[in-house]
């Protein structure tokens, strides 16, 4: 607590000295201790999942993966210890939730590896553990380096530039790679290793937050009223049109509907929160739906996705070799096979569905853990997103609020797009399920989001309302 006085002095809006009352309300060690207990529970759940996978799928225990998992847990506790020093007021739920989701994902990827006969350093599960380690180290670095999120505000336009570059990278000849039709990877040699678009979503969130805080007056105050809504001036439409064009470019050139929807949805929500103008949302949704409809008519892959969504069980769609509904239907069969309580770890057949460890990991988990497991996982996401929104509600500065909401919403939207696609709420698009799905870039991006949300929540609690009200 020694540095509290020093930090509060940085806060632009806080006024008045901290009171004795505040000192007693703020009990940061209590938060960290709570986090510690939750982390222990999370690690027990993860260890149990790995052991149950081994017993269910192999009938014996293999210590190698348990040891790797233990190493990963040690890193998570490293992050926890780092927070005891540099973010002691941070939210106690975010880290345990991310840990449990990450661990369940590894257990399921491992389970698919066993079914496919993969093991050792070539297997997806070991790679996922390594990437998780890198991601957690990245999170520790983030929370150590960024002591105050307002630093990011300074780099608003640099973030925007980084986002654009990251998005364009896969289109650069030589390093861009195409995987199952979508050109969203970069790699060296034949191996596609990284999806820069995943990192771009953080840069975009930072850019949107900074840009909107700077320009929201012109975006929200002027314009003319039509049908009871104030619509913006034509010349203020620029940013919206730029982001829309960017999303459409992702759809056309990278053939990635999900990512486009993710970026555009993120932008619209942040724009709405910043400007309070529903008209932006109406305009944006119309633009995107219009663009998507045109794409569904002109681009085969988008058209296929819509057709699969509407009628997956028709024999023509099921038997179509490329772009048919085989995967979607197998995912539904898998979920149905799981029923209410699931088949149990290692007892189902998630390996029948194509890419059961990445895009379809939620169907794999639904098959073996059942509806109960899906509900638990979704509830964890709800809690995670709610903690993020909480930063938005309690935040003191508009940049922090917007960034917190943006980062939390991007997780919610990503879960909705991929799980909604698997469960036929919306057409299926390829996206990773945050923390669960196999994929290094996604892990790094989402763990950095965890670090940023932790940093934001720490700042929020460092400037409690009581101080201002007092």
């Amino acid at each position, binding site marked *: 607590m020694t540095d509290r006085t020093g930090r509060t002095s940085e806060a632009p809006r806080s006024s008045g000295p901290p009171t004795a009352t505040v000192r007693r309300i703020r009990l940061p060690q209590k938060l960290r201790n709570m986090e510690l207990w939750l982390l222990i529970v999370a690690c027990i759940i993860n260890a149990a999942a790995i052991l149950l996978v081994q017993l269910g799928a192999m009938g014996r225990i293999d210590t190698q993966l348990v040891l790797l998992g233990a190493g990963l847990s040690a890193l998570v506790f490293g992050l926890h210890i780092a927070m005891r020093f540099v973010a002691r007021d941070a939210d106690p739920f975010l880290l345990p939730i991310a840990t449990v989701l990450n661990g369940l994902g590894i257990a399921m990827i491992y389970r698919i590896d066993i079914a496919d006969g993969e093991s050792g350093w070539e297997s997806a599960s070991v790679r996922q553990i390594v990437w998780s380690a890198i991601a957690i180290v990245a999170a520790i670095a983030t929370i150590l380096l960024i002591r105050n999120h307002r630093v990011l505000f300074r780099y608003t336009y640099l973030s925007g530039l980084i986002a654009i570059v990251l998005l364009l990278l896969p289109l650069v000849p030589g390093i861009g790679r195409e995987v199952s039709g979508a050109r969203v990877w970069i790699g060296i040699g034949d191996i596609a290793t990284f999806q820069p678009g995943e990192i771009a979503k953080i840069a975009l969130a930072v850019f949107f937050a900074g840009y909107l805080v700077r320009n929201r007056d012109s975006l929200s105050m002027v314009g003319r009223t039509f049908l009871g809504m104030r619509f913006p001036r034509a010349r203020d439409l620029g940013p919206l049109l730029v982001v829309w064009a960017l999303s459409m470019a992702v759809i056309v050139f990278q053939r990635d509907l999900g990512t486009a929807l993710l970026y555009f949805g993120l932008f619209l*929500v942040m724009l*709405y*929160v*910043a400007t*309070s103008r529903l008209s932006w949302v109406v305009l944006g949704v119309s633009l995107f739906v219009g663009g998507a409809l045109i794409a569904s008519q002109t681009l085969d892959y988008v058209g296929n996705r819509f057709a699969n969504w509407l009628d997956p*069980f028709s024999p023509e769609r*099921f038997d179509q070799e490329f772009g048919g509904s085989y995967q979607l*239907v197998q995912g*539904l*069969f*898998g*979920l*149905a*096979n*799981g*029923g*209410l309580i699931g088949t149990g770890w290692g007892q*189902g*057949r998630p390996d*029948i569905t194509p890419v059961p460890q990445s895009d379809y990991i939620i169907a794999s988990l*639904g098959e073996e853990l*059942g*509806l109960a497991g*899906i*509900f638990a996982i*979704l509830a964890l*996401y*709800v809690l995670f*997103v*709610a903690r993020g*929104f909480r930063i*938005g*509600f309690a935040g003191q500065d*508009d940049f922090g*609020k917007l960034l917190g*909401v943006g980062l*939390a*919403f991007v997780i*919610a*939207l990503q*879960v*909705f797009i991929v*799980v*909604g696609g698997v*469960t*036929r*709420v919306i057409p299926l698009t390829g996206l990773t399920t945050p923390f669960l799905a196999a994929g290094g870039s996604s892990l790094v991006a989402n763990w950095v989001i965890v670090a940023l949300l932790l940093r934001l929540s720490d700042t929020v609690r460092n400037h409690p309302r009581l101080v201002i009200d007092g």
Partner: protein
Amino acid sequence: MNRELKRVTIVALLMFLALFVSATVIQYVQADALASDPRNSRTLYESYSVERGPILVGGDPIASSQPSDDDYKFQRVYSNGPLYAPVTGYIPVNGEATGLEQSVNSYLSGQSSSQFFDQLNRLISGQDPMGASVEVAIDPVAQQAAWDALGDYTGAVIVTEPSTGRILAMVTKPTYDPNALAVHNGAEVQATYEGLLADPSDPLFNRATGGDMNPPGSTFKLVVTAAALESGQYTPQSTFPNPASLTLPGTDAVVRNSGGGTCGGGAEVTLADALRLSCNIPMAELGMELGDAAIREQAEKFGFNTEFEIPTVTEPSTYPRVLDEAQTGLTAFGQGDVRATPMQMAMVSAAIANGGIVMNPNLVDAITAPDFSPLQEFEPAEFGRAISEETANTMVQMMVNGVENGAASNARIDGVSVAGKTGTAENGEDDPYTLWFTGFAPADNPQYAITVLVEDGGGLGQEGYGNLIAAPIAKQVLEAVLNT
């Protein structure tokens, strides 16, 4: 800003709510419908992950599940596959099961409602789920004897127990090896199946209970005789004109007796002699006097035009619906459009042996849970009374005469009184005959009813006849079972 935040929060919650609802719809509401989609390979693998119960003959398995290392945890093995193929059928990884594998599948796979609590117990106690075992009525001695006796002929042999309807032997030839259709390679199964399907000898037919059915020929005279005696207007001593040929009314069709001449000597012939010597002309005359309605009624009392579940569903033997006089005359000696399976003709013989009562044919004795508790016992069930006991006794004597000094002489067994009736049915103008024998033994205390069917004239074209080829097969089988 917080007002907007609240709205965004609501939107996010609605998005998650949609996911909760959609997951519930798929995993709970639609789960059963999705599981029963024929394209759902998980359901198939699931059905193989349960150790399917065995099918037993005299306590020995003729179909059993052995542990397997592939996607399907168990391999179905048919010991003595070709011999028991018409009983077991097969269960392929793709396509539909047949035989008992299909008809008692819910028991074998452990999915029947009576096994629900048993499976729940096994689940709770950590045991792997297991299907029930099915004990069939087949007598392995009778089955093997029938297989041996039928030799290389195309046809079928069925042996039943007249008092119960239990099927003691069911052999059909040519046949197939169900093991070849139980391999775990769908493409291989498909290729084997298509090969069998294209085989002109139709090995997939169960000729005992179906297939391309044959006219019963003279064996059907038993039904017509029964109808006559039941009408009360005829006795075995009733007489009929005895010409050497008969032109059916309103047609050019000429009926002849099998010998070509008259039926025995004399201007008139008795019903008893007509049946004993298996003459066509007196039977045609009798049939036309009785009319098609009376014959049809009698045939249906024996089980014609009825589908039986043994529990595998059998094809109904047919006596046609509407006939003119000439057609009725033809059916009276088992020609025209009347068609019968060996099982149906065995039911006719068995009913005569059983004092007139037709028993439902049945292949299964008992179904037993893995913990040896009985799930279902099959009690003998009456189909109904076809003829009076008096008519039955009369007909037993007529059939014994047919074997002892009539047209079915080759079924004679020293020291045992055999009752029987042969048949030699015409198909097309130049097509080979279909040869029959149906009967039972011992006549004074019937234990076994047997029907033999030999298609393609037994390789002799139009030279073969029932007493030459079918009767000796019946004799050989009866000797084997009576000596045990």
